[in-house]
């Protein structure tokens, strides 16, 4: 029991790790702030493509989405970070993470937004067009708001997945929260910094998971 406390809940080591881990948390949040809006934008484009009437565009969009849903994000990240330099393209860890997660998140957001767009009755768009709105106006003011509302729980749980995904950035030495905690662990040979990071992830994500659960129940009932 003492060994477990000393190995996983060593407050002294946690206190020492705290400043570095908090700095890492800042980087984690920064990655999210860049990657979530980018993923939403890319996802919207791919979703619009996948419900378009143009056959080539539709297949290209679906191909894009399936490709990046089948490829593990870590494989993509390592390909971009460690593979591209051989061809003379050396990216910073932050740039590599941004590109890899943009592609991965776009695919997942596209699939959710596509379901949202398909859930809006056709008549809504037609009615909006018949009042004289342009196609863009119809999308922005009529179709998209309803689509987003219908899939809001899924969009939120994908955002949670992205926050968790940022931990992969530690593999390419980007100093986010897990990287910071792992660094202190490797110096102290003690797992408490990792427990500290785990605790912070819980503080960050548990409330969100509860809120999503409530949303889902409200929509179901």
């Amino acid at each position, binding site marked *: 029991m003492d*060994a477990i406390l000393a190995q996983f809940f060593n407050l002294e080591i946690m206190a020492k790790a705290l400043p570095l881990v908090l700095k890492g948390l800042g980087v984690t949040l920064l990655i999210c702030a860049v990657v979530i809006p980018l993923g939403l934008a890319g996802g919207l484009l791919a979703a619009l493509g996948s419900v378009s009437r143009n056959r080539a565009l539709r297949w290209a969009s679906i191909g894009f989405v*399936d490709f990046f849903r089948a490829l*593990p994000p870590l494989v993509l990240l*390592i390909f971009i970070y460690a*593979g591209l330099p*051989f*061809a003379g393209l050396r990216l910073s860890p932050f740039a590599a993470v941004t590109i890899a997660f943009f592609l991965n998140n776009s695919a997942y957001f596209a699939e959710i937004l596509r379901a949202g767009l398909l859930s809006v009755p056709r008549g809504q768009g037609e009615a909006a067009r018949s009042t004289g709105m342009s196609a863009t106006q119809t999308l922005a003011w009529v179709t998209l708001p309803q689509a987003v509302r219908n899939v809001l729980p899924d969009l939120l749980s994908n955002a949670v997945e992205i926050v968790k995904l940022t*931990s992969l950035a530690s593999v390419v030495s980007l100093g986010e929260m897990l990287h910071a905690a792992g660094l202190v662990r490797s110096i102290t040979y003690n797992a408490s910094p*990792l427990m500290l990071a785990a605790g912070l992830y819980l503080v960050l994500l548990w409330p969100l998971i509860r809120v999503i659960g409530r949303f889902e129940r409200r929509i179901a009932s």
Partner: protein
Amino acid sequence: MDVFLDTFLNPAVLAKYAPAILEGAVVTVILSVLIVLSGIALGTALACLRAYRVRPVSALIVVYADILRALPPLVLILLFFFGLPNVGVTLSASLVLYVVLTLVLAAFAEEIVWAGITATPKGQWEAARSTGLGFTQALGHVVLPQAVRMVIPPLTNRAIAITKMTALGMVIGVPDILGQATTAQSFSANASPLTLAAAAYLVLFLPFVIASRWLEARFSGPGG
């Protein structure tokens, strides 16, 4: 163009490391199958346990599912791999990966199957009980089969997402596809093994991604 081919599709490098990647693919497939089977079994068992509505038991299950859904799997992998040996429990890298991903998939599966159980109409329970079935029989023979049918698409998506995470094993030295590829890449100083790895993942997972698209189209729409 030549630089590109030489870097990413170098025939000599591809031929040399194809056997290693193939070995990695066997590891990935075995781990994936085991994780899906035990994760879904454990998750379904937990959801059934929750159906008995014994308060402390249900509360424990909810806390378990919430924590495992909120933590990044990589954090758990590092905790198990680097933390446990110091308290006398040493697991191999592959075993750590299997245990962690099974626990994570079980947490998601529990929530998904539970949603299916609560969405099954009350009349199904009542009708089953009124024919003389006990609670456990009603759950096992009437409610659970309907619940599982309802949640096949989200369960499939989640199982694919989690088995893709076997690639995280590379961080602790599991000789899976990505692990083999990164080793080969550093030996050959060439990116072709990574191309091969990406192709291997696509071959393994693309059929399931496409099948899940088909499942969703089939199980959604009017009448469910």
